[in-house]
C-alpha cells in the first residue's frame, strides 16, 4: 500500500493490511497476517499507521442538515398527498388481440395498496410473460398489469 521497498514475504501481506485493520479478513487469513506482523517491523508500522488513520477519521465531525430542511421535506411529503384513488388497469395481449379491463376505487382516506397483484382471470392460454408497474400521480395510484399469452 505504501511506496516502501517490500521485504520477502511482505508483498502478499501488504495488500491485505487495510482489510486486516478493518477486521474484514477470514480467520485463517487473519492468522497469516498476525504471524507475519510478529516478525516484520515495517508491516507492523504500516498496520499501526492504518489503524491510526481509520481511528482518526472516525473522529471527524458528521454534521446534520438543518431543521428547516426537515420541515420542507415533511411539507412536501404532505403536499404530494396520499393517494385516494386506486386505478387498476389490466391488459391481456394475444398477438394483435388486446383485451383490457379496469377497476377504479376511490376512498375518503388513503387507499390501501392491492393486497396482491391484480389477478388475471383464468384463461385457456398460458402466459408467456407479465409486466406490472405501480405509479403515483396527483393523488392517484395506478397499477398497470399486462399479460402476454402464447399465440
Amino acid at each position, binding site marked *: *500500500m505504501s511506496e516502501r521497498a517490500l521485504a520477502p514475504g511482505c508483498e502478499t501481506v501488504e495488500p491485505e493490511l*487495510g482489510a486486516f485493520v478493518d477486521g474484514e479478513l477470514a480467520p485463517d487469513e487473519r492468522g497469516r497476517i498476525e504471524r507475519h506482523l510478529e516478525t516484520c517491523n515495517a508491516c507492523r508500522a504500516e498496520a499501526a499507521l492504518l489503524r491510526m488513520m481509520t481511528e482518526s477519521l472516525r473522529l471527524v465531525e458528521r454534521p446534520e442538515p438543518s431543521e428547516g430542511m426537515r420541515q420542507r421535506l415533511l411539507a412536501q*411529503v404532505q403536499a404530494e398527498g396520499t393517494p385516494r384513488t386506486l386505478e387498476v388497469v389490466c391488459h391481456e395481449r394475444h398477438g394483435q388481440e388486446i383485451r383490457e379491463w379496469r377497476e377504479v376505487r376511490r376512498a375518503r382516506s388513503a387507499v390501501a395498496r392491492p393486497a396482491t397483484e391484480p389477478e388475471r382471470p383464468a384463461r385457456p392460454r398460458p402466459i408467456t410473460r407479465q409486466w406490472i408497474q405501480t405509479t403515483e400521480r396527483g393523488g392517484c395510484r395506478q397499477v398497470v398489469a399486462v399479460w402476454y399469452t402464447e399465440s
Partner: protein
Amino acid sequence: MGNELPDETLMARVAGEDVAAFDLLFQRHRRGVFSFTLRMVGNAATAEDLTQECFLRVWRARARWQATAAFRTWLFTIARRLALDELKRRQAAPVALAADLLDDDGAEAPAPVAGIDARHPQEIVMARELGRALDRALRELPEEYGEAAILRDVEGWSYDEIAQVLGCPLGTVKSRLNGARKRLQQVAREWMGEKRT
C-alpha cells in the same frame, strides 16, 4: 414511536402511508446521508438539497418498496446516485469545502472509537486534528476511491454493505480502499512530519 424498530419495519409502515414512520427513518439517517453527500459534492447547501431529494425519492418509491435489501444500503444507493449526478452535472471535481466541514455547529459529537478513548486527552486532540487533515484529503480523491473511503472510514460500514451500495464485488471495494489509503497514508506521514518539526 417505534424508535427501536428496524428500518425495514418502519419502511413497511411508510409503504402504508405512515408519515410518522417516514419522519423517524429520516431522523435516523439524515446525518449519515447528509455527511456522505456533503463529502461527495463539497457544498453544504447542495448536500442539503440532495439529502432532501433522497428522502423524497424514498417517499415516492414507498409503494414499490420490497424488503429484499437492507433499507440503509437502498437509501445510500439513492444518495450516491444523486451525488454522482450532481458531480456529472457540474463536470468538475468537488470544490474545496474546508469551511463547510470544519464548522462544528450542529456537528454530532463523534461516536466513541475503541482504542482512542482510552488515551490521553492530548492524543485525542491530535487524532482529531489528523482526522481533519485526512478528511480534507478524502474529498480530493477520485470519486470511486472517495466514496468507498467515506463509507468505510467515516460512516464505519462493512465491505459487504459498501459493495451493495457501489454495485461492485468485494474485491473491488478492497482495491478502491487500498487506493484511497495509499494517498491518505502520504497525507498522514506529511502531517506527522510537520508535527515533529
